[in-house]
Every structure is written in structure tokens, then in C-alpha cells.
């Protein structure tokens, strides 16, 4: 068949990648050439098939949980494919955060009065039951306040948790959500468990105080080993 156009040009024509002059010439040709017309038609049809197959919509649940899975991946040991410089960049960041929080806010330091922080506040802690706070502050435990946390912060939270773990400052990280509600302080503490206090605006200072006492009573923090602790109480 002696067609004047290279088939590549027909493909380019389909993509609007030819000049106006060439477009006119091609269209005039394919009107009278079954072979070229059929080739363009099949390209166009196959493009649509490819597009549809690739863009086929996933179930709503898949997208609803996409961000959750992304956060979840950060809590697991990365495989070869995921092993990037990502965490190595986060560790210094986390270490910096911890340093500032440890030395400027102290461990488990609440405001001197019984008033709650102005913004939502989360306290994350892990400690050996018998470890003095002073030692914990230096190397064996961390406690971080993160302002303005909410349930949409999973990504940031998981990144921070992972960074803490990678930093070697924390032995284990375990999340316990403590819901502060009247007469219903849900507490699941044990040795070497992490504590995650989710104190929100409007939570009763009395409840928060009760919660802190329970943490102390569980041996997470030794009493009378730290002056800040007495201030805190």
C-alpha cells in the first residue's frame, strides 16, 4: 500500500501533534484510505481501553482508608523498596524536637496551676516503672507534647512515633488512647507501656489530675524523684 503518510504521523495526528497543514492533508487522505482510517480508529479505541482500564475506579473504602494505610506503613519496618533516606532525615528532626521539649518544658510538666493548656494537647510518654525521671530525661525515655493534635493527624503522629523509635531514645512505643470523660477515664496502663494523653479543651482539670495520679500509681513514674513532679501535682 502506497500511503503518503508514515504511520507514526497518524499516531501523532491522533495526539494533535501535527501542523494544521499536515492535519488537513491527513484527514483528506484517511477519508479515502480504509487502511489508514482503520489504523487511526483502532489507535483511538485502544487508547480509550487503556485509559479506562488504568482509571477504573477503586471502591470508596479503598480511598477512605488510603491515608490510614499510608500512616500505618510508617509504623512498620520498611522493606527494601521503602528503605529510603526518609527516616534518616527524620531522626535528627525528632531528636531536635525532643531536645527542646525535654529541656524547656521538662518531663511530664504540666502547667503549675490546674488550668489546661490553651490548645489541644497530647502527651506521649514511655518510661520504665522504676526509672528516676532524671535518668529518663537523659536517655531512656521521652515525653513529647504535641499541640493541636486531632484524629486527622495520623500521618504526622506516625511519622513522629517512627522517628522516636528510630532515634533509639524510646524502647517501645505503644499507643493508648485515654478518653477523658466524666466518671469514665479509660486507662490501660502496664509496665513499659506508652501513654498517650489526649487532653482537649473543655476537659476537666480534675479529671486530668486524676489521670496523672493513675499514671503515677501504675508505677510509670516514680514519685518524689523529681521536683517538677511535685510542682505538677
Amino acid at each position: 500500500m502506497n500511503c503518503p503518510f508514515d504511520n507514526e504521523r497518524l499516531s501523532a495526528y491522533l495526539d494533535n501533534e501535527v501542523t494544521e497543514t499536515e492535519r488537513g492533508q491527513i484527514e483528506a487522505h484517511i477519508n479515502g484510505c480504509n487502511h489508514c482510517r482503520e489504523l487511526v480508529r483502532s489507535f483511538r479505541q485502544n487508547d480509550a481501553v487503556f485509559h479506562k482500564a488504568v482509571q477504573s475506579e477503586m471502591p470508596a473504602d479503598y480511598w477512605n482508608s488510603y491515608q490510614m494505610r499510608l500512616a500505618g506503613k510508617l509504623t512498620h519496618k520498611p522493606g527494601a523498596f521503602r528503605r529510603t533516606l526518609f527516616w534518616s532525615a527524620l531522626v535528627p528532626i525528632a531528636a531536635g524536637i525532643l531536645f527542646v521539649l525535654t529541656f524547656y518544658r521538662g518531663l511530664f510538666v504540666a502547667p503549675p496551676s490546674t488550668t489546661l493548656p490553651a490548645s489541644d494537647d497530647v502527651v506521649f510518654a514511655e518510661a520504665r516503672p522504676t526509672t528516676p525521671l532524671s535518668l529518663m530525661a537523659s536517655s531512656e525515655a521521652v515525653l513529647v507534647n504535641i499541640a493541636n493534635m486531632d484524629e486527622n493527624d495520623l500521618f504526622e503522629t506516625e511519622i513522629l512515633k517512627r522517628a522516636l523509635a528510630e532515634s533509639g531514645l524510646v524502647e517501645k512505643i505503644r499507643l493508648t488512647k485515654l478518653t477523658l470523660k466524666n466518671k469514665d477515664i479509660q486507662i490501660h496502663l502496664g509496665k513499659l507501656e506508652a501513654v498517650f494523653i489526649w487532653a482537649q479543651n473543655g476537659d476537666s482539670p480534675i479529671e486530668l489530675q486524676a489521670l496523672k495520679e493513675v499514671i503515677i500509681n501504675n508505677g510509670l513514674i516514680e514519685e518524689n524523684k523529681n521536683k517538677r513532679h511535685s510542682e505538677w501535682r
Partner: protein
Amino acid sequence: MLHSAIMPDCHPDTELVIAFRQGDKNAFSGFIEKYQKRVYHLARGITANHHIAEEVSQETFIRFWKSLRADRFDQAQEVYPYLRIICINLCRDYFSAQKRKMEHINEMDIVAKSDCPSQSGQDAPQVMQAIESLSGEQREILTLRVVEGLSYEEISRHINCPVGTVMSRLFRARMELKAKLGTVKI
């Protein structure tokens, strides 16, 4: 809204970038919600594999997060083209790393399909098999043109080759797809 008032000509994503840098913890979620489908479908087109596409797309967001944190992302840039570049490079990295194991992976992929969430409007398995049987390079160029809608010039910048090469590769990919789909009832 505040940022729009300050910088009326800035790209809509600029507000999210600024918010992220100012500590708005929801800003990054905004990026994910806005672009998760596009990034996933881009990866799916290139890899033809749901599981790898999920992996690649999520790694894309992690790297973007890292770029934002490290101030390597210029807030005047559009976000999606940046994500696209990361995603394409990750797909290429993946194929390079797995080159020797491709046959094994393809075998596993067939088994893993049962784990893939059911998709509405899913095409006949033969269509996906035909797409899988293309080379990674062919799927990449078809995806950039057919799914992403990029011009030859834009594709040439992405894959770092002349426009003429883009045209010939795209033509060969289309011919290959035509041959693969030739026996498939669409």
C-alpha cells in the same frame, strides 16, 4: 483565604504549602486527598499492578512530605507535576531493582490479584493482561500521553529524550497494544 488575599496570583496549592510550613497539620492530608487518585492511577498505568501502584503512590507522598520538610519544594511550583516526577522515578527505580526478578513478580502478581479490591467498571481480565504484557517503557509513555494527557514536548522532558523519540515510542507502544488487544473481545 488569607494567603489568597496576600498573594492573589499564587497557585491554589501554594496555600496548602504555606499552611504546611506554618504548622497546619491538616495541610498534608489536603495534598493526599487531592492527589491520591491521580498519583495512584499514574503508578497503576506504568506498573499495571495494583499492589505496586499502591506502594509507589504512597512512597511518592512520603518523599513529597520529606521535600516539604526539607524546604526543597518551591512553593511557587505546582504540586502535581512534582508528584508525577517522583512517581515516575519511583516506578523506574522499582523496575530497575526488580529487573532480575520480573518473572517471579509477574507470577506473584497473578496470585495477588485476588487481594485486589474489586473495581467498579473493571475491564475483562484479558485487557489488563494485555496491558501487563507491554514493556514498562511502553506503559509509561502510553500513561503519560493517554492518562496524563501530556504533550510530546512535556513527555520528552519527563523521560529525557527528544520529541521525535517520544513520537516513535508512542507509535510502537500503540502498535504493540493493538497487537495484544487484537484477540481480546472489548
